[in-house]
């Protein structure tokens, strides 16, 4: 049931690192509300502050100034927060411990849940999660992370999300390490998460093309600020910021002039 309180509510959020001369402002005076069940993409080039913003949402960083709220309250306890808000990162190999089997790690993920399940229930949920990403549970039986390819590992991260069923998913560049075929695949699964589990998804990417397909709303970030936002069609067809125009121009599209020799 969509509820009225926004999932995330940011008011004038600033996040800085360092001090004095070396002060770096990663997120600069950002305000927004994200509603329940929305897919919001945060798009920007390297170093624009998009990952820092994602980490604020995850409760890994606190804002230096301004207020950031999850469902109307401040994020105080990370463990409680992660019960409902989960993530996918860019590099699946660094998310899994190489010394344990994938299955044991998928099952261990349930320790974060307040809801206590029996081992049988956990096992069933993991099986269901694997099936959701089209992997037969027996295919990864006894397998370790290094035995799978990057694309398969990225799917394991998605299987973990399908199994845990968090309310909110923060996906930080989930497709930047995989090739074009796997990318389309991951996109399909993200859509499936939204459709089947009504998940709120925050999708962080530098690829505006990707964001265009999946999101209900786009935020374009540049130097810590949100410079353009709105429905994907509006942002792409009627960009209001030069940054958006630049981002669109930089994509090598097949029907468009790019750079010439």
């Amino acid at each position, binding site marked *: 049931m969509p509820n009225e309180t926004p999932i995330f509510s940011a008011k004038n959020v600033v996040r800085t690192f360092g001090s004095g001369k070396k002060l770096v402002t990663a997120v600069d005076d950002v305000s927004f509300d994200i509603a329940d069940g929305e897919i919001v993409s945060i798009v920007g*080039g*390297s170093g624009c502050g998009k990952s820092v913003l994602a980490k604020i949402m995850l409760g890994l960083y606190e804002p230096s100034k301004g207020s950031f709220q999850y469902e109307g309250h401040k994020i105080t306890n990370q463990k409680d927060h992660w019960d409902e808000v989960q993530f996918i990162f860019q590099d699946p190999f660094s998310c899994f411990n190489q010394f344990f089997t994938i299955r044991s790690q998928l099952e261990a993920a349930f320790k974060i849940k307040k809801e206590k399940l029996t081992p049988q229930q956990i096992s069933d949920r993991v099986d269901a999660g694997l099936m959701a990403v089209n992997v037969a549970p027996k295919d990864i039986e006894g397998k370790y992370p290094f035995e799978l390819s990057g694309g398969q590992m990225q799917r394991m991260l998605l299987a973990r999300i399908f199994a845990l069923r968090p309310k909110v998913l923060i996906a930080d560049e989930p497709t930047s390490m995989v*090739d074009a075929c796997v990318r389309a695949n991951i*996109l399909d699964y993200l859509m499936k998460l939204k459709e089947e589990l009504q998940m709120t998804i925050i999708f962080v990417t530098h690829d505006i093309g990707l964001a265009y397909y999946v999101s209900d709303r786009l935020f374009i970030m540049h130097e810590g600020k949100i410079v353009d936002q709105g429905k994907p069609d509006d942002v792409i067809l009627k960009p209001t910021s030069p940054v958006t125009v630049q*981002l669109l121009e930089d994509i*090598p599209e*097949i029907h468009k002039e790019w750079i010439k020799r």
Partner: protein
Amino acid sequence: MTKPVFEVENLSLHYLTRFGSKVHAVTDVSFTMQQGEILGIAGESGCGKSTLVNGLMGLFIPPLHPTAGDVKVAGESLMNRSEKEIRKNVLSRKVSMIPQGAFNALNPTRRVKDIAADVIAAHEGGSDTTATYARLMERFQLFFGKDTARVLNSFPIQLTAGERQRSVIGISTLLNPQMVIADEPTSALDVSTQKVVIKMIFDLLDAGIFNSMIFITHELPLLRHVADNIAIMYAGEFVEKGTAEQIVFDPRHPYTKALMGAMLSAEPGQKDRKPVAIEGAPPSLAKEIQGCRFAARCPVARPECSQKKQEIRMHADRLVRCDYAE
């Protein structure tokens, strides 16, 4: 007809596992490149692109071994030569490679200028550092402009991803190689940085630093802008080869079509065309494969496809490895 700068004849490569079995990563790849040509090679992860790169440099470091075939640079064969000799006489001067991960390619404890000076010292000898630095300044000036001194005096960690990748390209092309092989040089970069790096490669081509290039990537739209010709690789084989326009706008092999179908686009009017993932996985290359390698995933496969081996042959105006290509 000028002599081709690069000739590859029926090149097959395999990895020898520690159990004595072979994994045939590259099978029967043939192509020739003329002076000034840019060839793009595209395919999904694990299709043998990077293995092929090692083969094309004549660099056979166990467990990689050549099975058959020949690679010639300007008429000179690279096969059956020791790694040491290849590194000394071929790499950097004749064939040079631009690696993917710029961060892993640069020694983190040394300044960019010293890493570059090592390349010159290793190939040309001499220890006149002042002269070497002056030469580096001149070359890096081409693409770093007023930032040249800062970049050369920096440690890799002090540079942005784009600067690092451009430094790597600068170092790879220091000795004016005849051929450059770029293995996913922009895959780890965002779109804006990618554009800067491609622009730099074009500048080097225009300046005549090198003039033939093999560009490997999985981004077909990028190849459309970079390459003259494109070869599509699947499970260790070339399945289609034609001009960039032919491959991108009029793909014929079912795999090329599927690859194009999986591409995304933010172009107006493209949103309705949903990217379609290719289901299934490529066949294991550890076993002998009968029939067409794409048959199991092919949307238009016929019953005989899983048994009948397909040969790559001229199909109207380009090479296609499918008898049923329209």
